[in-house]
C-alpha cells in the first residue's frame, strides 16, 4: 500500500542513434512522446537506419539482423532536495524523535542507468533498464518492456500494428504519458516525504511483476490491449530451498494467479494537434504474505482509470495537457483480520499542463489529489521505521485521523541547453497530507512542511 518512490521515465539516445532521427521526432521534450514516438513504440522499437550484420536463409528468410552499433545508452540524474521543514532524526533513538535531520540532500547520482533500447531482431525490440539508485545503493532491474510487433496495411491505406509486450510494470508499455509509469512528474526527488496512499496500478507493483499483454493499434488511432500480470520478485528466495522460488510466505503482496490488465484508447490527430481519451485498469488479488502462508483470504484491488491527453506540437511552441483519474476499490479480506476495514476505496487524480518554447525553455504545472475512505489500519497513526518493524513516536509518515487524503501542486521550470540535457527546478506544495492540512500526524507537522524543492540535472547519451 505504501507509495514507493515515484517511478521516473526516460528518453533514450540509442533510439536516436538507431533511427538517425533527432529526439524531436519522438519527443516533444523527453520523456513526453509525440505521435511519431507512440507509433515507434507500438512498432516494437525496431525502426532502424543503421548498417546491419545479416544472415538470410535459402528462402530469403531473415535469420539475423544485428545493428553494427548496439542500442546502448547511459542516463544520469544528479539532484538536490530541500524540504520546507526538516524531519526528526531517529537514528540514535528509535523510540522517540531525538533531533533533526540535515536538510538539503545531494543525490550524486540520484540515479544512474544503463539502457538497451532498440532493435534485437527484425520484429523484436526492447526498452530495458538497469539502474543504480542512491537510496538502495545497489544496481537493480528497472523498467523493462520487451516487444514483438508487426504491421500490416489494410484496405483504404490504414495501418494495423499488433504485438505483444513482456514487461515488469503495469502501464510501462503504454503509448501515452497519461498513465502512471511515464506520467508527470517525469522525475521526482527520492529524498522527500511520500504520502501513505497510492493505488496498485500507480507504480506500487513496478519491477515487482511480470506481465504479458497483447495489443493492437489501428490506423494510429484506436488502441486496445489486454494482458496478465504475475508476481516476479527480485531479491526473494524460498526459505526452504534457498532458490528464487517457489514464492513462499516470506514474500509480501504476492499476486494470486494472474492479474488481468486492460486498456483502450483513441487518439485523433488534426494539424499539429492531437487528442487522446482512454480507459485502463487491472484487478489484483494479493496474498499479504510477510510471515503468513500464501493461501486463504486475500486482498483484492480493482483499479479502473480514465485518462486524457491533448498536445499541440508546433515549430516554436509546444503545449500539452494530460490527466488521469484512478479509482480503486479494495476488498481487504486478509488485512481485515489484522485490523483494517473490510473494504476501502481510493481515488487519485492528476492533471498537468506543459509548455515549451523551441524545446528549450519550458515548464509544467500540475495538480494532484488522492482521496479515499479513512482506515487507521492502512494509514496508521503510529510510525514504523524503514525496517518495517521498529515502532517510532515520530509522526511524519503517519496519519493522525487514518485518512489517505493528500493534495497539492507541482510546478517546475526547465531549461534544455541541448535536447538530451535538462535542468529542472521543481517545487511541490502540499495543501493536505495523509488526511490533514495542519498537524496531520498528531506530532505537530503540517502538510506544507513536506513541501519539496528539487533541483535536477538530467541527461542521457
Amino acid at each position: 500500500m505504501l507509495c514507493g518512490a515515484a517511478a521516473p521515465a526516460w528518453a533514450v539516445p540509442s533510439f536516436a542513434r538507431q533511427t538517425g532521427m533527432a529526439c524531436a521526432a519522438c519527443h516533444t521534450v523527453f520523456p513526453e512522446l509525440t505521435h511519431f514516438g507512440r507509433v515507434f513504440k507500438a512498432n516494437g522499437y525496431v525502426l532502424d537506419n543503421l548498417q546491419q550484420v545479416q544472415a538470410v536463409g535459402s528462402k530469403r528468410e531473415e535469420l539475423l539482423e544485428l545493428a553494427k552499433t548496439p542500442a546502448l545508452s547511459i542516463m544520469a540524474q544528479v539532484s538536490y532536495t530541500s524540504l520546507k521543514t526538516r524531519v526528526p532524526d531517529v537514528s540514535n533513538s528509535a523510540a522517540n524523535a531525538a533531533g533533526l535531520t540535515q536538510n538539503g540532500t545531494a543525490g550524486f547520482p540520484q540515479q544512474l542507468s544503463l539502457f538497451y533500447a532498440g532493435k534485437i531482431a527484425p520484429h523484436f525490440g526492447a526498452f530495458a533498464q538497469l539502474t543504480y539508485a542512491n537510496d538502495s545503493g545497489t544496481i537493480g532491474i528497472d523498467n523493462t518492456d520487451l516487444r514483438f510487433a508487426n504491421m500490416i496495411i489494410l484496405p483504404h491505406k490504414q495501418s494495423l500494428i499488433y504485438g505483444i509486450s513482456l514487461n515488469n510494470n503495469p502501464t510501462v508499455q503504454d503509448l501515452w504519458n497519461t498513465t502512471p509509469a511515464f506520467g508527470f512528474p517525469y522525475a521526482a526527488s527520492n529524498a522527500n516525504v511520500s504520502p501513505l496512499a497510492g493505488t496498485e496500478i500507480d507504480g506500487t507493483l513496478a519491477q515487482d511483476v511480470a506481465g504479458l499483454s497483447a495489443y493492437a493499434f489501428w490506423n494510429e488511432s484506436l488502441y486496445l490491449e489486454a494482458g496478465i500480470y504475475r508476481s516476479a520478485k527480485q531479491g526473494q528466495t524460498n526459505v526452504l530451498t534457498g532458490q528464487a522460488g517457489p514464492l513462499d510466505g516470506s514474500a509480501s503482496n504476492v499476486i494470486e494467479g494472474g492479474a488481468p490488465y486492460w486498456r483502450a484508447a483513441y487518439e485523433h490527430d488534426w494539424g499539429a494537434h492531437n487528442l487522446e481519451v482512454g480507459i485502463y485498469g487491472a484487478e489484483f488479488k494479493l496474498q499479504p504474505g510477510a510471515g503468513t502462508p500464501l493461501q486463504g483470504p486475500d486482498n483484492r484491488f480493482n483499479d479502473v482509470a480514465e485518462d486524457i491527453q491533448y498536445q499541440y506540437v508546433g515549430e516554436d511552441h509546444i503545449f500539452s495537457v494530460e490527466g488521469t483519474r484512478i479509482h480503486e476499490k479494495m476488498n481487504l479480506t486478509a488485512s481485515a483480520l489484522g485490523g483494517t476495514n473490510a473494504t476501502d476505496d481510493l481515488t487519485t487524480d492528476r492533471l498537468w499542463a506543459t509548455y515549451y518554447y523551441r524545446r528549450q525553455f519550458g515548464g509544467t504545472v500540475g495538480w494532484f489529489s488522492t482521496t479515499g475512505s479513512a482506515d487507521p489500519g492502512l494509514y496508521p497513526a503510529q510510525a514504523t521505521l524503514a525496517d518495517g518493524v521498529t515502532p517510532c513516536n515520530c509522526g511524519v509518515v503517519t496519519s493522525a485521523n487514518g485518512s489517505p487524503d493528500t493534495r497539492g501542486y507541482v510546478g517546475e521550470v526547465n531549461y534544455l541547453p541541448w535536447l538530451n540535457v535538462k535542468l529542472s527546478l521543481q517545487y511541490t506544495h502540499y495543501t493536505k497530507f495523509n488526511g490533514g492540512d495542519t498537524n496531520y500526524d498528531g506530532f505537530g507537522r503540517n502538510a506544507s512542511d513536506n513541501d519539496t524543492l528539487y533541483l535536477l540535472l538530467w541527461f542521457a547519451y
Partner: protein
Amino acid sequence: MSSIDRFVARLAPLMTAAGALAFVLAVSPVHAQEDAAAVAQQAEDTAIGVCGTCHGPDGNSTNPMFPRLAGQHAGYLVRQLKAFKEETRGDPYAIAYMWGMASGLSDETIDALAQYYARQKAGFGKSHDPATIARGREIFEHGLPSQGVPACALCHGPDALGNDQFPRLAGQHAEYILKQLASFQSNMRKIAVMHGVAQNLRTPEMQAVADYLESLP
C-alpha cells in the same frame, strides 16, 4: 538492402492482397517484373505505414510541419530523397528527421516512393483572407520587379503545379513554405535561385505567397 527496405520487406508479404501478390511474384521465375512489383508494393507499404505517420497515408499530411507530398512530381521527390540521403539538403527538419529516414533507402525504393506520391491525388488546400491571397497571387504571377523578385510562376507554373524540375506548390502548407523560404534565405537549404528570391522578400510578402499557394487546389 537498406534498413527501411528491410523493414518494409517484412511487411510486404503480409495481408494485403497486393502484398500477397508481390510475395507470390517474388518467388516466381520472372525476376525483372517480380522485383519491380515487389519494390513498388514495398514502397507503398512504407509510404503508408512509415512515412505516413507524418506525411499522411496518401501524402496529404494534415500537420503543417510536414509537407504534403501527394501529387508532387516524382523527379523532384527523387532529388530530395537523395539529397537527404547524401546529407546535402540542410534545412533543420531535413537534418533532424529526413537524413536519418532516408539514409538507408536504395535507389529503387526512392524511385518507387516518388512514384507512389506522384500518383496520389493532392487534397484540398486551405482558404485564407482574400486580400492576402490577392497580394500573394500578384507576387506569384508577376514577382516584385522593384525588389528584384521574379515571378514564381515562371518556374513553378501558372497554377503552381510545377514539373519534374520545379516542385508543385499548389495546396502546400503555408507554414511549410514559409519555413523553406526562411531556409533558402539563411542558405541552410542551399539553392542559389531561391536564395536570391528569398533574400529579397519581406516576411509579409512571404506570408502572402504562402497563403495564396495553400489556398490553391
